């Protein structure tokens, strides 16, 4: 692991250098909140941001994008080229770095998704460590995504007077040396760095889930009536999936464009919470109940996708979905409940046995 030091006043010059070579995305203030967006004027960059409304996922999987253009006369079709330079994401918090890693897995499983990888390929990613909790709803420490991880080229950790930067890979080394803005990390910086990292571990030492059993706990709780109770607070609005850094589900629609000469195949974010998400011709709906849809999302985040990719959990605990949800529904609530489920069931059975005059342990 190679560490360098970047003085505070070198941050903007560095951002300007990157903005010349990449389409530059970063956190900026907008309408009383923070957003992660493409920014032309890098002085808008706000590395002191808490969290953004939407995760940086939209850089590679935009809310709406054209997958193909088809000539209606000749049927000739092509996918749109990537618009120019690759993307640089600057200042990505650890939860969102992990989120990007999970997106890469979902969109990279064969057959890999070409439109995603056109945007993702050659992207330069700069992580930024969190030294304090961004909002009460976040639970990154519960799912252990509060530490640096995922696909970063540089990882910034704030220390007195600037940032200690961990470099990774060929692109990370190259961009650092070509910029000429980094300094060799001296002993005092390293000490400061270790202290900051200790502080991070202390700050994020809140709840911990039993990640080793999470997916089996969840699958065991599948038939629990508790999901219906939880769904009483859900409005099937789909806000939770829209703000999620690891949700990828989408819809595809073909549309007429350019005065009826061309057709466009568009994809847009979809949500497994929306009523007709699993409906087929003939009217059959495979997740008709709101509780079935809510449970499905929690299962995806805690069991299905995690199992598919050999991870303990797919949710990164960013807290955006409970923050955005009218009913304040949090995956943490579901994950923690699933752990209690077998115990509750056992207690229930015990009560039944006692009622029947039998006190037998099973």
């Amino acid at each position, binding site marked *: 692991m190679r560490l360098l030091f970047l003085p505070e006043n070198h941050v903007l010059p560095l951002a300007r250098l990157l903005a010349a070579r990449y389409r530059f995305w970063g956190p900026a203030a907008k309408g009383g909140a923070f957003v992660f967006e493409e920014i032309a004027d890098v002085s808008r960059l706000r590395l002191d941001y808490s969290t953004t409304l939407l995760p940086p996922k939209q850089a590679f999987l935009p809310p709406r994008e054209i*997958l*193909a253009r*088809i*000539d*209606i006369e000749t*049927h000739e*079709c*092509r*996918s749109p080229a990537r618009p120019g330079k690759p993307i640089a994401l600057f200042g990505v918090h650890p939860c969102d770095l992990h989120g990007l890693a999970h997106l*890469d897995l*979902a*969109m*990279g*499983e*064969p*057959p*890999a*998704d*070409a*439109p*995603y*990888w*056109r945007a*993702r*390929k050659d992207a330069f990613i700069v992580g930024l460590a969190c030294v304090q909790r961004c909002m009460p709803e976040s639970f990154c420490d519960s799912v252990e995504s509060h530490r640096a991880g995922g*696909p970063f080229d540089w990882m910034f950790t704030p220390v007195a007077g600037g940032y200690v930067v961990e470099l990774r890979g060929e692109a990370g080394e190259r961009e650092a040396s070509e910029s000429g803005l980094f300094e060799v990390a001296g002993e005092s910086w390293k000490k400061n760095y270790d202290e900051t990292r200790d502080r991070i571990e202390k700050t994020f030492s809140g709840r911990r889930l039993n990640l080793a059993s999470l997916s089996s706990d969840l699958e065991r709780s*599948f*038939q629990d009536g508790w999901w219906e109770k939880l769904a009483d607070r859900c409005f099937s609005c789909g806000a939770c999936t829209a703000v999620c850094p690891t949700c*990828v*589900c*989408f*819809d*595809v*629609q*073909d*549309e*007429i464009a350019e005065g009826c000469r061309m*057709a*466009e*195949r568009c*994809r847009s974010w*979809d949500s*497994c919470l929306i009523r007709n*998400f*699993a*409906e*087929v*011709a*003939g009217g*059959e709906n*495979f*997740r008709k109940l709101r509780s079935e849809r809510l449970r*499905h999302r929690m*299962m*995806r985040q805690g*069991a*299905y*996708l995690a*199992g*598919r990719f050999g991870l303990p959990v797919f949710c990164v605990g960013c807290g955006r979905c409970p923050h955005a949800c009218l009913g304040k529904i949090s995956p943490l609530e579901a994950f923690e409940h699933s752990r209690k489920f077998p115990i509750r069931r056992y207690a229930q059975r015990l009560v039944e046995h006692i009622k029947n005059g039998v006190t037998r342990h099973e």
Partner: protein
Amino acid sequence: MSDAAGSAVDYLPELSTLAAVRPLTAAESLFHLDMPHRALGHHPGQFVQVSLPGIGEAPISIASSPTRPAGFDLCIRRAGNVTEAIHRLKPGAKIGIRGPFGRGVPIDDCMGRNVVIIAGGLGLAPLRSLIQYITDHRSRFKAVTILIGARTPETLLFPDEYGAWRSRDIKVEVTVDVSKETWLGHVGVITNLISRIDVDPDTTVSIVCGPPIMYRFVLRKLARRNLQNDHIYLSLERRMKCGMGKCGHCQINGLYVCLEGPVFRYDRIAHLPEAL
């Protein structure tokens, strides 16, 4: 990462030409398509994404066997936007194709065994691919039985082909839910036919495709005939958008029907609460 980027797949339809249309029932027709640049290269039970520019895409099973050269068949029911529009096309029209997608029927597991094919309604469309394959390689299979159920005699699919199938030493039994006096065949649900056939549990495999409601009854009946779950294959339908395990629409619990299905060995999904 670079691997994924290198072998990534786009959502571009390939051009095919509608060569012929054969009306089958009031709602279903058989469309024969030619791909100019390649053979489709499918396995029985797989599906393609069929599209018309500006109208949309729909997943449709391939209704003909890869053993038949020159093009492929799709049996399409009018059900909405895309399927209605396809029904309005004349021969010579262009149709977009992506695929083939999914896992079809594992032919190797059927070879050298008795095969019982159970088709309800439109379920005969994907199974016709397997049936044609069997008729083209008849000696590789032991006793073959096809059980077909439809609502009425008028909605039976491919009745003009049963004779040819029978002539290849295949037993074809047909039943309808309701009929007029002119119908001389069986009346009643398809499960009744299962009671009437010989099933040797050790050497028989069964492949089932039909409307969602059919599976539970058929499976119960097959269990009563002592057929083990790992000798039963089910072809399942779900909503589909991408066909590539990405859009999430087709999921049954943690499985993607477009990748791991649509044909599943029953013992591999029997424990999934969302499967049937």
